[in-house]
């Protein structure tokens, strides 16, 4: 049996009177790339923020990193630093690309910052732009810098919220290649939220389908796309679900 990174039981997130997330059982194994798919407003980003230890669930228990005791909120810094999240809309500091990518390393007072930043920028094809001002970058370049500043930290878990939304095919391929290389070299656990069913099919080992805040189905990628059990999953995979 694989070692798990996350286990969740009866996770619920409620904003005001609205329940935005309801997941009864959640398991994410170490080294897997889990794709979370679903229409807008399904609770994908909320689940990702809970997994990033940025937001506590209103109810339920979350276990992280194989530890027998559940995560306490606010989580301690050492636990938080094992997870890194790339947001859908990357916000960079008003500084150079190098400074932005080095931010997390400097926050940790890490060694060998220059070499590690250059290596991360190389992975996303932006080594030549290290000294460019962040505000001069295009949308695709911004997203690649956001990925680089997460990759440079070599996290145990990498959470990606729609990292390729609104990007052209070239930028999508650069980001997907970087993810493949990361998994190949570091055996990093990746949770990828995406609208794009084809991307989930290309990259994911396991896929979770969220609808209206509820986890409809979780299965390995082949089963999910070839023989989904739930009729709503079938409709979503076939593209019949209008949202």
């Amino acid at each position, binding site marked *: 049996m694989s070692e798990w990174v996350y286990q969740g039981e009866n996770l619920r997130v409620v904003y005001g009177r609205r329940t935005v997330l309801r997941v009864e059982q959640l398991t994410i194994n170490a080294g897997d790339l889990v794709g979370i798919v679903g229409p807008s407003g399904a609770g994908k980003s909320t689940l990702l923020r809970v997994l990033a230890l*940025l937001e506590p669930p209103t109810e339920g228990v979350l276990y992280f990193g194989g530890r027998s005791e559940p995560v306490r909120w606010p989580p301690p*810094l050492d636990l938080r630093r094992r997870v890194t999240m790339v*947001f859908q809309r990357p916000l960079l*500091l*008003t500084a150079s690309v190098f400074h932005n990518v080095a*931010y997390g390393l400097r*926050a940790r007072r890490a060694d060998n910052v220059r070499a590690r930043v250059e290596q991360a920028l190389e992975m996303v094809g932006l080594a030549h732009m290290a000294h460019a001002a962040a505000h001069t970058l295009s949308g695709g370049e911004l997203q690649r810098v956001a990925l680089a*500043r997460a990759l440079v930290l070599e996290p145990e878990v990498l959470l990606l919220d729609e990292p390729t939304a609104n990007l052209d095919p070239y930028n999508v391929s650069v980001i997907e290649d970087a993810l493949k290389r990361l998994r190949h070299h570091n055996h990093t656990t990746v949770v990828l939220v995406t609208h794009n069913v084809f991307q989930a099919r290309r990259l994911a080992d396991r896929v979770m389908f969220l609808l209206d805040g509820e986890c409809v189905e979780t299965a390995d990628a082949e089963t999910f796309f070839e023989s989904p059990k739930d009729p709503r999953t079938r409709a979503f995979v076939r593209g019949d679900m209008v949202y």
Partner: protein
Amino acid sequence: MSAALSGQPIRFARRDRGHPERRWGESCIRPTRDARSRRGRCAINEIWEGLKQAALLLWHLDPEVLQIVAVSLRVSGTALLLSAAIGIPLGAWLGFSRFVGRRLMVALLYTGMGFPPVVVGLFVYLLLSQSGPLGSLNAPWVPRLFTVGAMVVAQVIIAFPLVAGFTMAAVKGVDPNLRQQLISLGATHWQATLAVLREARFGVVVSVIAGFGSIISEVGAVMLVGGNIQGSTRVLTTAIVLETRRGNFSLAIALALILLLLSFLSNVLMLRLQGKTA
């Protein structure tokens, strides 16, 4: 010196011929064009004299003027440092936090931003006077009235709401998701707060400039709690009031020009500092 200012009679227009000795201001009848022209020339002469005297005072490093400038800078500089030390963290905290009573605190802060300095001076006067709640303590940490310390207290109360209010607005202007993104990169809450403040540095510098502008040009409160004592608590603004009352317009203009120059130089310095961090 002009006829009006020296007390010399001014000749009035034809309708006022029956009272040629009447002074300006005693009648609503308009003075002649010549009289108006003379007064205009006199005002220009006063300004010109003031400019020359300012240049001379600065050139000869007049000890009294230097002493007044030094007290002004000491009072307003200390007050600004204390206001920034209180106002920037307070503004950042109000910008970042959500808690019960925050709205009330923000409303109080906005009230403080518009507080008339002379009212602040009155409160500080009452607090620090011998029969006041703080003055009666005779504690070493309570500044006495008519000292630089009392003036600093009054100026801090005037400036820190401005610094805090503008800092809060600057921090709220930064996308709140940035802080979350930095925390997700492993920054501590303190590191993320500093990074957001750095992003909001333009607004923070503006807050400090606004705070400085409010106290370097303030006269009511420092006059009340400082007393305008020569060689001790006399600052540029109170000296300008005094010299104007005495009729020493040239000296008053000279001091006003020094005050404007100081204000301009401090703003240039802060904008340069801001530019270096950009």
